[in-house]
């Protein structure tokens, strides 16, 4: 793949729009053209040359382009928005809405990501090697539809409302997730290796959530089905045993929660309700 190396000259004081920094937008352009592309810093139009140094070369097709960005991008928003192909690697932390409405390609963040990772995503891969913020894999406000496809991997922890309104695709979290994991879920799969917060799977109607760690409670709107020895996430076998709950019954839901038996002794009393 052709590599374009961008280095952030200094962390901006006001937010910078990262939408322009996708292989789709930078493919087929000379270095000079790229330096002269404009984006927003606050309410000012600024050239990329003012924000970044740029080295390397572009590719003619987005799928052949790898954009590598160095620096503290915590105030760079919507990086990789609507991306369809190619790769972006950020060596640093990144701001809100990384991968907004992306349809393909790969984004790797070697740092933390802020809130709304993969909002409206329908394809592609986002890999965050640090922590991520709230509402990973959610959807734009009012759409009642979160992530539709693709894969989000977070090595560390995530915030609240993971996979809010998610309809498809997979999210894997290596660390912990906060409250309302899988809220309003409509499909797809969530896997959390660590602990989750309260209200897991609230109002879910479909989809699957697997939790290897501790969950403080299971909502009264879930009923226990059985104990299973193991389960699968995207074809990978995950060793249990797991309590399996279905719900959210108040939504007529058929979502499934797979909860580690070992890490959740306080749920033992629910076993009495297994048929």
């Amino acid at each position, binding site marked *: 793949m052709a590599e374009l190396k961008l280095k952030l000259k200094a962390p901006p004081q006001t937010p910078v729009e990262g939408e322009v920094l996708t292989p789709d937008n930078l493919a087929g352009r000379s270095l000079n053209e790229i330096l002269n592309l404009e984006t927003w810093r606050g309410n000012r139009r600024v050239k990329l040359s003012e924000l970044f140094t740029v080295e390397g070369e572009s590719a003619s097709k987005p799928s052949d382009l790898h954009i590598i960005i160095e620096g503290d991008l915590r105030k760079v928003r919507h990086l990789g928005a609507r991306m369809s192909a190619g790769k972006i690697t950020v060596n640093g932390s990144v701001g809100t809405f990384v991968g907004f409405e992306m349809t393909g390609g790969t984004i790797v963040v070697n740092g933390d990501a802020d809130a709304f990772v993969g909002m409206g995503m329908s394809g592609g891969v986002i890999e965050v090697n640090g922590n991520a913020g709230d509402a990973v894999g959610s959807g*734009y*406000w*009012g*759409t*009642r539809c979160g992530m539709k496809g693709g894969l989000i991997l977070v090595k560390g922890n995530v915030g609240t409302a993971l996979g809010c309104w998610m309809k498809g695709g997979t999210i894997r979290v290596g660390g912990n997730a906060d409250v309302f994991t899988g809220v309003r879920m409509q499909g797809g799969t969530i896997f959390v290796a660590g602990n989750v917060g309260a209200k897991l799977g609230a109002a879910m109607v479909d989809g699957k959530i697997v939790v290897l760690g501790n969950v403080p409670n299971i909502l009264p709107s879930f009923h226990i089905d059985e104990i299973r020895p193991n389960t699968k996430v995207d074809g990978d076998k995950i060793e249990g045993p797991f309590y399996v709950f279905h719900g959210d019954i108040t939504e007529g839901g058929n979502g499934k929660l797979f909860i580690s038996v070992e890490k959740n002794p306080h749920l033992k009393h629910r076993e009495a309700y297994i048929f």
Partner: protein
Amino acid sequence: MEYLLKNGYVVDPVNKIDCERMDIAVKDGKIVESVDESKAKVIDVKNMLVMPGGVDLHSHIAGSKVNVGRLFRPEDHYKDYEVKSGVRRSGVGHSVPSTFTTGYRYAILGYTTVFEPATPPLKTLHTHDELNDIPIIDKACFPLFGNNWFVMEYIRDGKLEECAAYIAWLMRSIKGYAIKVVDPGGVEAWKWGITSQDFDQEIPRFGITPREIVRGLVKVNKMLGLPHPVHVHTNQLGIPGNYKTTLKTMDAVKDLATGDRSILHVTHVQFNAYGGVDYLSFSSHADDIADYVNKNPHVTIDIGQVIFGDTTTMTADGPFEYKLFNLLRGKWANADVEVETGAGVVPITYSRSNYVHAVMWCIGLELALLIKDPWRVFITTDHPNGGPFTEYPRVFSWLMSKKARERVLKRIPRLARVRTNLKDIDREYTFYELAISTRAATAKILGLSNKGHLGVGADADIAVYNINPKEVNPSADYKIVMQAFSRAYLTMKDGEIIVKDGEVVAAPVGRTYWVNAKAPKDVEDVVIPEVKKRFEEYYTVKFENYHIPESYLACSAPIQPLEPLG
């Protein structure tokens, strides 16, 4: 400022001008006989169509329920936005556009007058505040009366004079234009959770039927000499089999008509022209409705055409919206208003592969094509209930071109095609008929004698479309029709150029019309103190605070009532 629009093909049905090459002279905001060509600004509109500015009598553009729609649908807006530029404020569009964008987009379509058809009196200060923020167009709003406690009690007790005095007082106080009725009695019933109201069934705890409400209000309208007939959204909207209620409603006031004057306007009839007993047997009875309208001049209608795509339904018909919510199970807002009325808002996507939606789409067009007199059937989408007003040009193309209709008919379910009459209708609207249905007739039915025509003395509200009626055959070239009507070549309002080649270049404040209604003083002197006393019991605001000062209208344009009849 003087203008001369030269060489255009003028369509002005009020003055019986049908695509004649004519010059239009404008001076001081009015159409005049002539201007001095050496002093006036001459605009050559050779080979273009010149019409009066559009007059839309029914479009939900302002007020509390419209704003509920905006507020709870950020997803409706975020991909359709307008950047601030020149005289234009920024905004958002699609089915519930923000106020500035609403005005600009109407002007770009060549519309210059748009009326908000339903406002709850208690919240009408809000309606006027939004109307003030809609630039360019002249506007007005219709207060809702069909579920009003005072009105229902007066009519129940046979006190029509008192009812008239109450309505006159209210119309003046809140600066309304016409009597609007939505689901008479049904919204009051819904406040107890009842979701269906029959036309001849008594409304709970009020001892009166919708029929009596409608009749009473038509009589009151006559007494007050209001410029527009009673504007009715009938009971049972959206329900299979409701065409019977529509016919009953229309027939209920037939005996009250005098001469050929229309005394009842029934709105968005498409939503009320259904046969069948459920959504499987759902069918079109547009032909029965059209038949009745053809034979009975006391009624006018507007169609409420459906457009396939995503939109937002919003209406004072709260119970209907609850039922729609139960079908769709998405978002639902409800806003009952004490003493007076209610509202509901539910987003919807009309899909051409959905049998019911497809039949609905056919019905609106059937009504427009089967009703023979274009002076009594008006083109609307009940924006945004059937679809956004920005889609009007698409509706025009369907009416003017059988080929355009067939293109859609090919893609709807076979059963919908087979069970409706639309495929067999050959009629195609002419530019003349289009102008009647969207300008001349609507202005007339609203009682706006200075609008909807290009005769001397008319307000210089003019729309010029880049389409040559002598060369373009709308039947074949319907795409050109759509394009031309989507972006006016020139829109003029009160003799000022507003739109040039589809771009808004000026954004003056439009007028807010309202009727300075009056009842005999001796009756008002008894009624108003009575009303004030009952205010404490009924409302949660003081009588003194109900009144809207005229200064709160950005450009107040009061109208005197007509001579009351009978």
